[in-house]
């Protein structure tokens, strides 16, 4: 007997839906817990605003960020120039609006490079143990023995100071932290009863990674990623501040703080506003990261779940 086309489709769809249900349900709960925390909402708003500026900042900027007007230098914050002008008469607000994208790009690129390396090496070290673990972890120790900022400075200097090279340098510095995190997580998951049970059923390594290790590493990674966006943005700005990152006239925020530094006494606004921008962004990522951590914490989660169910099903 032939079944109609639609039947197959619906059943497949249903199976998919049922399979995804644990994930979608948990995700809905996570969003609910997040929404209940005022601080997490503030964080999300700050991050959202920052992302908006990174994408559309250049369109809403009132002035050209590069245009030099020596006559209009060091105008204090006013109606025409909300954040004042710098030593070359460039509008600080417009420069900041243009500059937002560099920070977010730096954060994303560093994470995209560092996380896969860290996950791969940490996973191998934690799962297989033995000599692989020893080799990988000693190698990681070498990188962790450096003060990270100094190591990033050296790499950036070696590659030639530019914003892009600063990002590469930070990625080289950042992966060991993920390697450690994932290794620890893999080690602790490997010892649990359910992995033992799966193993005794004859599950292979790949199955274990897919079904048990990765899902269990996901939430600590997610929290670390959010908090690390803030760290990386600060670190990029710090490298630029020291002259190992963005070069003038690029309106990177750290570079702008450093450019205004010598004029601090006569024109505080040149340094203060870009720095405030960095601080608010990092604060946003920190608040959001904390919120996600609380939302993924099983203890807090179950308490809120009761309320959530009452709300959804009554």
């Amino acid at each position, binding site marked *: 007997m032939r079944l109609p086309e639609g039947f197959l489709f619906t059943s497949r769809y249903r199976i998919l839906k049922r399979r995804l249900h644990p994930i979608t349900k948990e995700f809905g709960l996570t969003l609910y817990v997040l929404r209940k925390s005022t601080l997490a909402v503030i964080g999300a708003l700050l991050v959202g605003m920052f992302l908006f500026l990174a994408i559309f900042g250049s369109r809403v900027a009132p002035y050209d960020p590069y245009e030099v007007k020596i006559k209009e230098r060091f105008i204090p914050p006013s109606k025409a120039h909300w954040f004042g002008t710098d030593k070359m008469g460039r509008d600080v607000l417009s420069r900041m609006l243009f500059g937002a994208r560099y920070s977010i790009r730096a954060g994303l690129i560093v994470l995209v490079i560092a996380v896969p390396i860290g996950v791969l090496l940490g996973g191998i070290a934690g799962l297989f143990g033995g000599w692989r673990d020893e080799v990988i972890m*000693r*190698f990681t*120790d*070498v*990188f*962790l*023995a*450096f*003060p*990270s*900022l*100094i190591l990033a*400075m*050296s*790499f950036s*200097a*070696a590659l*030639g100071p530019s914003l892009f090279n600063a990002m590469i340098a930070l990625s080289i510095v950042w992966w060991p932290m993920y390697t450690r995190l994932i290794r620890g997580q893999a080690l602790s998951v490997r010892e649990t009863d359910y992995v033992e049970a799966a193993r005794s059923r004859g599950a292979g390594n790949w199955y274990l990674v897919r079904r048990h290790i990765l899902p269990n590493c996901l939430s600590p990674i997610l929290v670390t990623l959010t908090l690390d966006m*803030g760290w990386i943005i*600060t670190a990029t*700005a*710090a490298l630029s*501040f*020291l*002259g*190992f990152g963005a070069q003038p006239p690029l309106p990177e925020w*750290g570079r702008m*703080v*450093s450019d205004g*530094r010598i004029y*601090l*006494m006569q024109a*505080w606004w040149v*340094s*203060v506003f870009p*720095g*405030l921008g*960095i*601080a*608010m962004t*990092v*604060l946003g990522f*920190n*608040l959001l990261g904390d919120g996600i951590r609380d939302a993924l914490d099983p203890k807090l989660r179950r308490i809120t779940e009761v309320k959530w169910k009452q709300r959804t099903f009554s």
Partner: protein
Amino acid sequence: MKLRNYILRRLLLLIPVILGVLVLVFIISYVIPADPARAWAGPKARPEQVEALRERYHLNDPVYLQIYYYLKSLILHFDLGVSATSGRPVLTDLKAFFPATFELAFFAFVLAIVIGIPLGVVSALRRNKPTDHFSRVVALTGVSTPLFWSALLMQFFFYYKLRWVPAFGRSVVEINRYTGFILLDSVLNWNWSAFGDAATRLILPAVTLAFYTMGYLVRITRGSMLEVLESEYVVTAKAKGLPARIVIYRHALKNAIIPPITVLGVTFGWLLGGTVLLETIFSWPGMGRYAAGSIVQVDLPAMVGFTLVAATVMILSNLVVDIFYSIIDPRVRVGGKTR
């Protein structure tokens, strides 16, 4: 004794890590596109001079030979080479700059602990009360504010605006330098005006650095204290009717203090690195500024020397923390199994 064996083993493990650090630095220096010898000799140097420099620092040799020469002089004569830009032995330079950085990092460290850990504890005890909100805001601000920016703000308010404390440099009062740590030396000299000068100059950078570190400590202490307060033995202790003071200090704090202590080691090493920014801003004549300068000028011997010292300090501070950790927590007796 087991502890001694453990320390010895850890110190032995230091050797491969240091070797790895050396190899890494030499590889970095090898891929630098600029010609270091030309940079050191200056723009007016004749080709023979550049060649002589290259010969002297073994720049024509492959990396592994450079590392070999370096290790040979390090082990046989405890010689870190001669700085290519200052012309002084790197060891002399580091000896001169290390106390300044250590002084700064140490006071920031102590300040962060003395304020941060109690604040975290109080915050957890008064959960969701105004005190808690206040300390969380302080902690979050500390963690989120970029160090270089808060340093500039501090300079702006407390030096330019209020004129309370000096904002640049270390003490310049002439005293006998016994140890290089100015605060200690001025006490040894019984020179209190020098002590006052050194202390006021230390305030701004140390407070800035401490504020940054403190936020981190407050968050960790608060989290771990909250966790412990919910545990069964604390609930039992409360139920038995023990006074709150005893429950907090005897039962809760002893266990809650472990996570903050584990991060202290990392934090101290990290402070030594973070001083680069502060030393640049506050014109503090320390190792961080020396390192930044040597990186800019491709001064390889200085770079290598600095990284060796920094890595050693970092590893040693982790070791100290691990030992301390085992003293507090009997479950983690170092150097072998407990049973």
